[in-house]
């Protein structure tokens, strides 16, 4: 692996692009949701203004060390996911620090942010956060099951644990995409994506109607700013993970932007017309069909 | 309604009968007989739905009027049972064993009128007010305007006119 300064700077540039694209994407999605309900919605630049405002608040309180570290861990989860993810296939600059076993590491980083958040929000002492955390952890555990099954199926199919290798195998034509070569794994993963992106029906974790607003109830100012920055990075990177694994990866930033947009749009598309599940209902849902499809996808490639 | 009132008259000493509408009548009964009457009406005459319980402060006569309004869901009639209790020793037998929601009304009356209902569930918990330390506000001798002026900060410049006198002076200034 290349540890030179230029590689590092290019990775930072990639992170910058990803963050801004994530914010633009989230405001665009909110505008789309607004159009469905007949509104105009927020201006496209609203996330940046919100971010500036959050970082410039004058008073901040803390509940202890872990309260500080919660958003930091969460950001580490997002940035860590980004660091080990090859963003642009074939580009020497935006491969980041991907290596041959990065798929396993990325599965771990997906969970990492949630755990850090649990520690930090628990320190906040707000009962809503506690309930949100217990819901979040139990739901996230089951989201991982179909995702992991799909990844195992992919590992068997392509005989590798490197994302770059998987993307490489899908090049050539659209028919080479995992979407067509391994549809069951794709379906299982896309269903688990619905939970990972935190839109309804699987957003009971931060349900503003019941436990306002779940884990980040006590977070404000810079803490919330960090969480929001991370949210922008995480959404693009997770979408990029699915793009790399199932939709042939991206050979240019434009392709990445288009593909991540549509992958994110899938969760919004489902979320806008569904109410949210209760936590035990969503746990059962994930352990039923997506898991079953995931197992089928493994059995096919065994 | 008339028949029902006649039947009640045969069993209970009621007075002050007011047949208000086709479907509504008010009767008065002594304090001790009220709960047995309500129970009797509920079990034998189908007055099983409870509508409201409220109090009226007749300060001139030094007594409270409690009105139990009950309704018969089968023939859609309502009966108001009036009970007069002493204002100094405001206490009434609780009826929470008859209807499941009546304890809320009793709790409110305890707070807003100071009428006690011994043994009613949670009757001593505050219901609406918080940190109230003067006489119960719904009593007639509590002057809300005076209390408001003393406690809160009236914005200067606001004047209060008696509407009748004000209109008279505006319309007929010469009189």
């Amino acid at each position: 692996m290349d540890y030179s300064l230029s590689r590092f700077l290019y990775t930072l540039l990639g992170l910058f692009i990803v963050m801004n694209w994530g914010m633009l994407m989230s405001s665009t999605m909110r505008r789309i949701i607004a159009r469905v309900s007949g509104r105009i919605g927020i201006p496209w630049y609203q996330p940046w203004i919100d971010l500036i405002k959050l970082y410039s608040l004058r008073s901040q309180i803390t509940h202890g060390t872990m309260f500080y570290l919660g958003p930091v861990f969460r950001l580490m989860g997002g940035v860590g996911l980004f660091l080990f993810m090859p963003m642009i296939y074939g580009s020497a600059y935006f491969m980041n620090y991907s290596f041959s076993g990065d798929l396993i590491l990325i599965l771990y980083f997906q969970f990492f942010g949630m755990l850090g958040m649990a520690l930090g929000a628990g320190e906040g002492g707000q009962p809503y956060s506690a309930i949100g955390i217990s819901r979040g952890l139990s739901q996230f555990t089951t989201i991982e099951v179909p995702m992991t099954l799909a990844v195992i199926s992919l590992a068997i199919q392509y005989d590798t644990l490197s994302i770059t290798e998987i993307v490489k195998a899908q090049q050539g034509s659209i028919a080479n995409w995992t979407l067509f070569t391994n549809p069951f794994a794709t379906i299982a993963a896309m269903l688990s994506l619905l939970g990972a992106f935190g839109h309804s029906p699987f957003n009971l974790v931060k349900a503003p109607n019941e436990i306002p607003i779940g884990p980040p109830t006590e977070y404000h100012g810079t803490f919330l700013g960090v969480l929001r920055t991370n949210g922008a990075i995480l959404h693009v990177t997770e979408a990029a993970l699915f793009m790399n694994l199932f939709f042939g990866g991206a050979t240019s930033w434009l392709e990445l932007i288009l593909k991540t947009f549509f992958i994110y749009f899938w969760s919004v598309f489902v979320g806008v017309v569904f109410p949210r599940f209760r936590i035990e209902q969503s746990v059962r849902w994930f352990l039923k069909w997506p898991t079953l499809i995931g197992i089928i996808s493994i059995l096919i490639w065994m | 309604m008339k028949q029902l009132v006649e039947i009640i008259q045969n069993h209970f000493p009621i007075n002050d009968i007011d047949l208000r509408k086709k479907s509504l009548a008010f009767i008065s009964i002594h304090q001790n007989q009220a709960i047995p009457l309500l129970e009797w009406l509920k079990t034998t005459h189908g007055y099983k739905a409870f509508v409201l319980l409220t109090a009226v402060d007749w300060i001139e006569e030094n007594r409270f009027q409690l009105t139990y309004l009950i309704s018969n869901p089968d023939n859609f009639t309502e009966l108001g049972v009036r009970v007069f209790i002493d204002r100094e020793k405001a206490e009434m037998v609780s009826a929470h064993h008859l209807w499941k929601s009546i304890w809320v009304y009793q709790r409110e009356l305890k707070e807003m009128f100071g009428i006690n209902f011994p043994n009613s569930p949670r009757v001593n918990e505050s219901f609406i007010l918080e940190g109230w330390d003067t006489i119960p506000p719904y009593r007639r001798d509590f002057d809300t305007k005076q209390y408001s002026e003393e406690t809160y900060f009236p914005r200067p410049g606001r004047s209060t006119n008696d509407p009748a006198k004000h209109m008279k002076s505006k319309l007929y200034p010469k009189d």
Partner: protein
Amino acid sequence: MFTINNDRSKFPELDDAGNALIDLTSHKYLKLWQGPQHPGVTGNMSLELTVTGDEIVESRTHVGYLHRGFEKLMERRTFIQCFPTCIRLCVAEPDPNEYLLSSCVEELAGIEVPETAQWLRMLALEMARLQVLLRQVPGQAGTFALGLGYQWGNYIRDLILDRFEELTGGRVYHMYILPGGVRGLLPNGFKNRLEENLKLVDEFLPNVWDLIYTNSVFKKRAKGLAVIPKEWIDEYGIYGPAARAAGIMRDVRKTHPYLFYSEIDFEPFTTDESDVFARSLVRWHDLKMTVDIIRQILAKMPEKGDIKAPTPNVMHWKIPKGETYVKCESSRGEYGMYLVTDGSDKPRRVNLKGPSYTHATSVLEKLLVNANVADAAIMVSLATCPPEIER
């Protein structure tokens, strides 16, 4: 292999007085307050929940955040001054308050209301019900985070409020129904404009049906949730859509026809399931029925005529001693006012009885036990209106 015991009705154990045996120091339970600063409660009230895990084991309703002492204030206002005061009793649907005070006063003073005024009163009451239901029907799904229908419904509600503005001059508080009659006739072209808005509601109804009542997730959440047993209806005093969802007909318009409701052809919808879904369904049918009723009123009402009975000078209007109870059907159920007069120009005592009084206190406290924290939105299905509880 996986046997999950869904019957949690025995938990927590109760003592002889009916109080839950909860040891708060055991660290098994958590106190959770929903409200008053909480977006999920209907208005400014709070629920004190004791939860274990995600399950509510005890619930206490706390009201009083909106208490203004109306009943006291009205005792020191003349009858005509009471009238702008009393409409603020329930903010979401103020017209039944106007109607109740007016008809109480008319009944005690012995005033006959002209026919045209009665039709106009009916129109105002039904339009008020329409605008409330346009919020409530999709609002039920909104508590389960499906906010889309709420947005659509609120748009049409704004248009109905425009019609109110045209008719009465007020957007939220109308002050249209006066003791003795109403304040004005319909403006020119009002019927056509209202008809246009009703057409929008006609389009909205199937859309919201597809969005909510065929929605698998909504069905999963709402079916079987918070079932009100049939016996409770009379024991607790449950009215309106909540009672009709339990299969018991409770509609003042049918049982005690007031105004000209006896001349209108309508049949309130009843169902037997009695859960959140059924109550929501009843409201959807109510909305449909209300549109129908408004159309019938517009067709049957006279164009012109007396709109106000002669009343004495309102500044010196003394009403003979007496007491009465008048009720009407609001969107939440039976809505009644108990008025006592003592022969002076001010009421002796006014008491307003709305369905929320029992719905939000004793019924809700019972229904929430053994429910999930996420289902605290049960209160929306009971359609509570806090200002009417504490007044």
